[in-house]
């Protein structure tokens, strides 16, 4: 039977009643001085990375347009698509936390651009992600649980293809443009913020209408391949890495070591993903900027489950777990801690740990 992931259903109320909502989560001990140093903001790394990102996007799209209509343009569209539809996911994420740049307006500017690329309303998703950090993978509370149980592989496949995100993005733009919001979204956005949600949606709708009209007017795919479609055809990388974050791990626990996963990745993947492969560390200390996460990892890895050594290694763990969860929604992987780590609190996780 499908679990009730609704934010306004019985499960949501049970999470509140049992104290799982807005709970006090486990943290690895770390000296205040060290943490202050790790949390320090800097503009330089994000300015460098943003310059590289936009330079690559402009180069790839220029070559793609130049080579159209030949199929030789396809690889360049694919590169552009991943930068637009996946690298912008991590930019949306990091700038939403306000940690990418030191200068607030730089964070806000890139956040707006990245939100547009991902078709994620910047106000809605800022609140949604705050809830994801308060109640990570708490059923009925977390609006960003990517893999629901029992697992349906067709739905995961459609997510890899970007179709579910693209469809829900378009639907939400249309709905918000008409000033409509469903009760689940209302449950995490304060009333005074809702007007901003609708205003942004109307601006975006105008941009998409102009893009489609341009495509029709010029009888060319280029405008939609540049704006809008990459959210779909470039989504695969952020789904590939994103499913590793919590896939196959426990629900309804209050220790990120039980529900999040750190995976070592190469430089290219880490550039696209902006170091979110250090996901346990990010959830435990969300105000540490992306460029400091490798250092944070070194400081606290003695207390964390062993990181997966690659994306492939991560999927060797995730896929069999998802397969089992397709028939047994109660199954999950418990990642073993090193001898140096503080053990999981069995008293807090009786249901999860048995």
């Amino acid at each position: 039977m499908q679990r009730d992931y609704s934010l306004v259903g019985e499960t949501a109320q049970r999470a509140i009643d049992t104290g799982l909502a807005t709970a006090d989560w486990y943290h690895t001990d770390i000296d205040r001085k060290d943490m202050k140093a790790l949390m320090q903001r800097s503009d330089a790394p994000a300015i460098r990375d943003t310059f590289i990102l936009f330079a690559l996007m402009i180069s790839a799209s220029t070559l793609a347009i130049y080579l159209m209509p030949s199929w030789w343009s396809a690889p360049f569209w694919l590169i552009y698509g991943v930068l637009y539809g996946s690298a912008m996911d991590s930019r949306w994420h990091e700038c939403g936390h306000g940690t990418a740049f030191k200068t607030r307006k730089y964070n806000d500017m890139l956040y707006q651009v990245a939100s547009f690329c991902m078709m994620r309303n910047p106000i809605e998703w800022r609140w949604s992600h705050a809830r994801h950090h308060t109640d990570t993978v708490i059923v009925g509370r977390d609006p960003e649980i990517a893999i629901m149980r029992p697992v349906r592989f067709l739905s995961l496949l459609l997510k890899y293809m970007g179709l579910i995100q693209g469809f829900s993005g378009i639907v939400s733009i249309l709905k918000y443009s008409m000033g409509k919001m469903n009760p689940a979204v209302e449950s995490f956005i304060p009333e005074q913020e809702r007007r901003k949600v609708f205003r942004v949606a109307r601006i975006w709708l105008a941009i998409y209408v102009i893009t489609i009209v341009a495509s029709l007017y010029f009888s060319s795919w280029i405008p939609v391949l540049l704006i809008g479609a990459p959210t779909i055809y470039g989504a695969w990388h952020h789904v590939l890495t994103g499913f590793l974050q919590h896939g196959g791990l426990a629900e309804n626990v209050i220790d990120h070591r039980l529900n999040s996963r750190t995976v070592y990745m190469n430089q290219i993947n880490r550039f696209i993903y902006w170091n979110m492969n250090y996901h346990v560390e990010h959830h435990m200390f969300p105000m540490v900027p992306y460029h400091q996460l490798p250092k944070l990892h070194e400081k606290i890895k003695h207390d964390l489950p062993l990181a997966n050594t690659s994306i492939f290694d991560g999927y060797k763990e995730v896929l069999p777990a998802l397969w089992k969860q397709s028939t047994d929604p109660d199954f999950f992987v418990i990642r073993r801690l090193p001898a140096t780590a503080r053990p999981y609190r069995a008293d807090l996780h009786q249901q999860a740990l048995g």
Partner: protein
Amino acid sequence: MSWILACQKEDIEQEDLLRFDFNGKTFLIYRSPDDTYFCTDGLCTHESVHLEDGLVMEYEIECPKHNATFDYRTGEALRAPACINLNTYETRIDGDNILILIQ
């Protein structure tokens, strides 16, 4: 209202804070970059996360969980998800001691 001894001046580094609990309430004492001392409630007005692990940047305190930001001199909420200001309390220096005015 009375003046309560919260801590000593050297207990707090410049551009940092110290937690102070009293009578079931929790407060933060801040030392600004120009060595002035301020006091606010200890819990974020968004979801009551304690701000003691947050980063002090010049005259702002950032919630360690959701990036809500407050001006600790006035308590003003500067960044969502906080929409409600922090309560602030008067501070006084008496020799090496920092006192705060609370009920």
